């Protein structure tokens, strides 16, 4: 493909917006802010992705799925670059991503990661998390860790729903 026939980058971003996260399929890799950059370099499409957690087993699956999705759209030369810095933060989850998480039953991050110093976090009370089912904030944390490193387990005291909270990082 020469530069005149390249699909443009906004088209590519919208295609990537259909690639689901393997562990939370309700949101795409674009919604989560995992794709950091997309650009053409001499006929090759370079997609920079960042891991959410350093041990997240989904990261290599995500790379494979992005490549497969782009190939299916006819892009033959794709290179996936892993980028560590700046480290991924839940602040990069898009507003649509947050809405999709909540509709899926996962409470989105309640705080801005770039806010208060993390070292002081255990000195203050954790923020109130709204139940994704009944919206009550009368909830409590069952465990800081859930089914994946990015989530914590909560339970609603009003409707009793146990739910995942996408924790702030």
């Amino acid at each position, binding site marked *: 493909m020469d530069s005149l026939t390249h699909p443009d980058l906004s088209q590519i971003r919208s295609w990537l917006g259909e690639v689901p996260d393997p562990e939370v399929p309700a949101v795409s890799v674009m919604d989560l802010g995992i794709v950091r950059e997309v650009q053409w370099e001499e006929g090759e499409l370079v997609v920079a992705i960042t891991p959410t957690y*350093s041990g997240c087993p989904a990261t290599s699956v995500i790379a494979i799925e992005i490549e497969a999705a782009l190939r299916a759209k006819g892009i033959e030369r794709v290179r996936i670059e892993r980028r560590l810095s700046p*480290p991924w933060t839940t602040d990069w989850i898009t507003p649509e991503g947050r809405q999709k998480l909540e509709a899926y039953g996962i409470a989105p991050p309640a705080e801005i990661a770039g806010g208060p110093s993390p070292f002081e976090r255990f000195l203050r009370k954790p923020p109130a998390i709204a139940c994704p089912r009944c919206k009550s904030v009368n909830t409590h944390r069952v465990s800081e860790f859930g089914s994946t490193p990015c989530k914590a387990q909560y339970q609603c005291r009003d409707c009793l729903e146990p739910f995942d909270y996408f924790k702030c*990082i």
Partner: protein
Amino acid sequence: MSDQEALFEYLLRLGDNALVLGHRLSEWCGHAPALEEDLALSNVALDLIGQTQLWLNLAGEVEGKGRDADKLAYLRDARDFRNILLVEQPNGDFAVTMARQFFFDAWHYLLLRELAGSKDGRIAEIAAKSLKEVTYHLERSRDWVLRLGDGTEESHRRMQAAIDDLWMYTGELFEADEIDRAMLREGLGPDPAALHEPWLGLVKATFEEATLSLPQPGWAQRGGKRGIHSEHLGYILADLQFLQRAYPNATW
């Protein structure tokens, strides 16, 4: 020792600490006292193994002999491991696991915070990434020290015993040797001794709240950073390395 060799050694220490503790925690998988704890311990182990991969891959790159994280993890003998003795201590009961974790997390947190400002951008970015994860580890292990210390008579007794037993392994965390001094000189890493005061401050405040007493300063067990380990490391490696030793270059 050249600067490059010192950096390689230093990176092995960072990677091996995460690897050995990650492996220890993974031993709880399927055995923890509650499902939530099983998940939490496995998740912390996963974070540590992920960090191991980053540190050991960088170590291999610095060494320049074609070894990657897998080769370094699976094909070195105990004498070539550079982890501190604290992380290889057996899991014991849940109090021992959480006391070990709290001592480590508090130190690890402070160390990574300094390393995030390292002059070497590769070190700084791994540290900044890991720091976010370790903040959660510290929050959780500190919480367990409080809950068990200020819990029932039995949980208090067990937590105090765990602290007393593990205390002698904490001295090594703050002792500088020639490798630490080389890192300090080059602006790559902090002076380990400078981490002691904030570490002790956090430990004291936590113990006070948990109604636990701080052990008396005593003899410190050391050697892990130089490859002199307790008998426990060999058993860990026998488990960890079995597959690569029995079936060299096996992949899946």
